[in-house]
């Protein structure tokens, strides 16, 4: 497997296409195709999503209360987020509200699930791009980090593991949970379970502080001007905020859609179709959500994009006025003073992700301290009926939208899903285009250059 030799077009064909397949160290499946012009400069790049499973279709006919245990399988990295959004949508259909303790337990498990995910992405998937000296692709991975820095590897492997085990101990399953149910939660938290989780949560918070210090010392200094420009585009942002004070929320909030200039609209979860449209391209199974509400259509043109907004960590920090926990708020202030609001550099997703890690750890402790968390009333009885419900939460990769209708038996008659990573389809394509045009000149590509293009994808953690 030789990296493309300089400037040679495959015989007989006029345009040369550089292919990166599969895009690696991401959770999903993607292929990058970069078309070069006759001078060997990147003319256009595309990120193709190569398959689809069809959840929107096969949910039809399923009893709605069973669906939250099916949609978890959309993603093994963020099943809790699908699980909760789905339950909220089913509750909308059936017209029921969960009791307060259930609302707390749901947020607790959701935020806890964010913790392991951020550790996974920063250290296991993206980390090798920053923690290892540039070089051979065969060593750019967590296995090599384990060999070179066993202490660091052990620490991150343990933290990710502990997060999963805390969820598992309390809720039975951490991957593909069943514990959130329409109407509430399947089991209450006992005082003992709460105390146990507290111990682990304090350790997680220590780790989050360590991770941020570590990154400030070892990773962010590598964000030189060229890296800050890598895949840089200017877009709007979508994320959830608290309806009262505009602070960061991962669930039970309103959606805020910010324009590139910083002004924004706020809307309830049910109103998403007024603000978000989905465009279809013939070369990817994924759709391309865009800000329909802005009224100027959809275009991924780098010079003149239309309707493009981003989600995931950077978006959430950009749209939120503040963060409700002290350590993360201090980090946000520093971040804003350095990069402004909204911050646009794609590499800043990594930085924002670690600030969110800190928030998640602080928030878990806050929730465990809430007096109602051990309340025994955890589920309202639900009665199947015809209705419609929309459930949104912030998944690690962005705003997750589950929208269902049910028939009179309470079975799904129609389902629409917009998953976190899908929102970023257009931005990822634009960032790859941008990186390819900046980096590929005169037909020269090598392994390291191609990896830099992939880094523009990895920042989004698709």
């Amino acid at each position, binding site marked *: 497997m030789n990296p493309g030799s300089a400037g040679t077009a*495959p015989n007989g064909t006029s345009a040369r296409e550089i292919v990166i397949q599969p895009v690696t160290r991401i959770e999903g499946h993607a292929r990058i195709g970069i078309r070069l012009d006759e001078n060997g400069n990147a003319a256009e790049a595309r990120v193709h999503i190569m398959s689809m499973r069809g959840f929107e279709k096969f949910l039809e006919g399923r009893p709605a209360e069973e669906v939250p245990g099916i949609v978890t399988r959309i993603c*093994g990295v963020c099943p809790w987020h699908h699980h909760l959004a789905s339950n909220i949508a089913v509750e909308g259909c059936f017209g029921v509200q969960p009791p307060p303790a259930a609302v707390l337990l749901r947020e607790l498990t959701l935020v806890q699930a964010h913790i392991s995910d951020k550790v996974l992405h920063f250290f296991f998937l993206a980390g090798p791009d920053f923690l290892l000296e540039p070089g051979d692709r065969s060593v750019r991975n967590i296995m090599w980090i384990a060999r070179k820095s066993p202490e660091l590897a052990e620490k991150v492997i343990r933290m990710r593991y502990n997060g999963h085990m805390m969820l598992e101990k309390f809720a039975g399953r951490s991957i593909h949970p069943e514990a959130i149910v329409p109407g509430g939660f399947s089991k209450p938290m006992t005082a003992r379970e709460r105390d146990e989780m507290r111990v682990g949560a304090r350790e997680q918070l220590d780790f989050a502080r360590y991770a941020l210090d570590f990154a400030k010392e070892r990773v962010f200094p590598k964000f030189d001007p060229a890296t800050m420009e890598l895949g840089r585009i200017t877009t709007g942002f979508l994320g959830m905020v608290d309806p009262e004070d505009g602070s960061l929320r991962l669930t039970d909030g309103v959606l805020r859609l910010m324009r590139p200039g910083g002004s924004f609209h706020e809307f309830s979860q049910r109103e998403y179709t007024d603000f978000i*449209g989905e465009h279809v391209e013939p070369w990817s199974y994924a*759709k391309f959500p865009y800000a329909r509400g802005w009224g100027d259509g959809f275009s991924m043109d780098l010079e003149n994009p239309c309707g493009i907004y981003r989600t995931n960590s950077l978006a959430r920090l950009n749209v939120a006025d503040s963060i409700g926990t002290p350590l993360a708020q201090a980090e946000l202030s520093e971040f804003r003073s350095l990069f402004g609001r909204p911050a646009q550099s794609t590499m800043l997703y990594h930085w924002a992700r670690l600030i969110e890690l800190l928030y998640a750890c602080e928030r878990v402790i806050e929730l465990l301290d809430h007096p109602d968390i051990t309340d025994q009333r955890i*589920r309202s009885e639900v009665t199947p009926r015809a209705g419609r419900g929309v459930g949104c939460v912030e998944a690690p990769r962005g705003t997750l939208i589950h929208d269902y209708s049910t028939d009179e038996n309470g079975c799904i008659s129609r389902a629409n899903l917009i998953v976190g990573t899908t929102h970023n389809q257009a931005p990822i394509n634009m960032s790859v285009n941008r990186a390819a045009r900046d980096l590929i000149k005169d037909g020269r590509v090598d392994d390291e250059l191609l990896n830099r293009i992939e880094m523009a994808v990895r920042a989004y953690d698709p």
Partner: protein
Amino acid sequence: MPVTIAAEVLSGCTGCEIALLNTGDGFLKLLDRIEIVHMPLLMDSKYFGPDEGSEEIDIPRSDIGFISGSIRNREQLLLARTMRERCGVIVAFGTCAAYGGIPALINLFDNKDLFRRYYRTAEATDSASSPCEVVPPLLDRTFALDEKIEVDAFIPGCPPHPDSIADALDRLIEGRLPETPVQSVCDACPAKREGKGTVQKIKRFLKNARYQPEKPLGEMRCLLEQGLLCIGPVTQAGCSGKSGCAPRCIQARVPCRGCYGPVRRGGNQLLDMLNALASNGIDTKNLPDRLSMLRFSGAHSMLPRQVRKPSS
């Protein structure tokens, strides 16, 4: 020489790989005994050089190939075949690979219905024709691995318990094949069973089971005997791991949905469960969606294609 391993994800969710990482310290120790030569999730494995993008997929040779996910499109089929050719032993890793898993629920519908819904009638979508450039065509349904290639070993579970993964790896590294016990989830379940005849009707899971949260699980009445559709009796054991825990869903006080697939390969979770219920005199007429009992094992032509009116 360490044992070499290649790992591919087909039509799955990566949860099986996360479960592998959930072996925790075991994962680190494992790295001393194996060499991972191909695993796109964690390392920069490419199918071909940047100028070679083509039908030919290159995967390094290895002793053991782990494949998670089912087969949904032509590229995944090619990947599965290439893995078969390059790996000494092929392991169907997880329920998707072993039985089709949740993605096989699409076998109830045809691709035309799916595309019409997804690209033309979904709420927020600007209607368009279905993608067909560069993306590999979908197969007409979702297949379990052994419908398309020869499979040497199965590690069921959605996802498999990390203990089962670690055990399987131990055996594979020693050159043996993993074993799957012929036991049901009920065999590993501590819930209290009082016997036949107590339930007449199965009800939907609309309110929680009866139990006392502070009390051990052994004092909770069996969920099936409480009238909930727990398909533990027809589902393979394994999800409790080795530490003596209860089956995972039972720990969460919810019924087993069958994610480990049938107790015996070739079994049919739907028919087996209906038989079990009937022999206990339990009425299932009011269950709204009996096919859901095959939600994890719908490949191998288990799920019939349904003729449905298109969604409005």
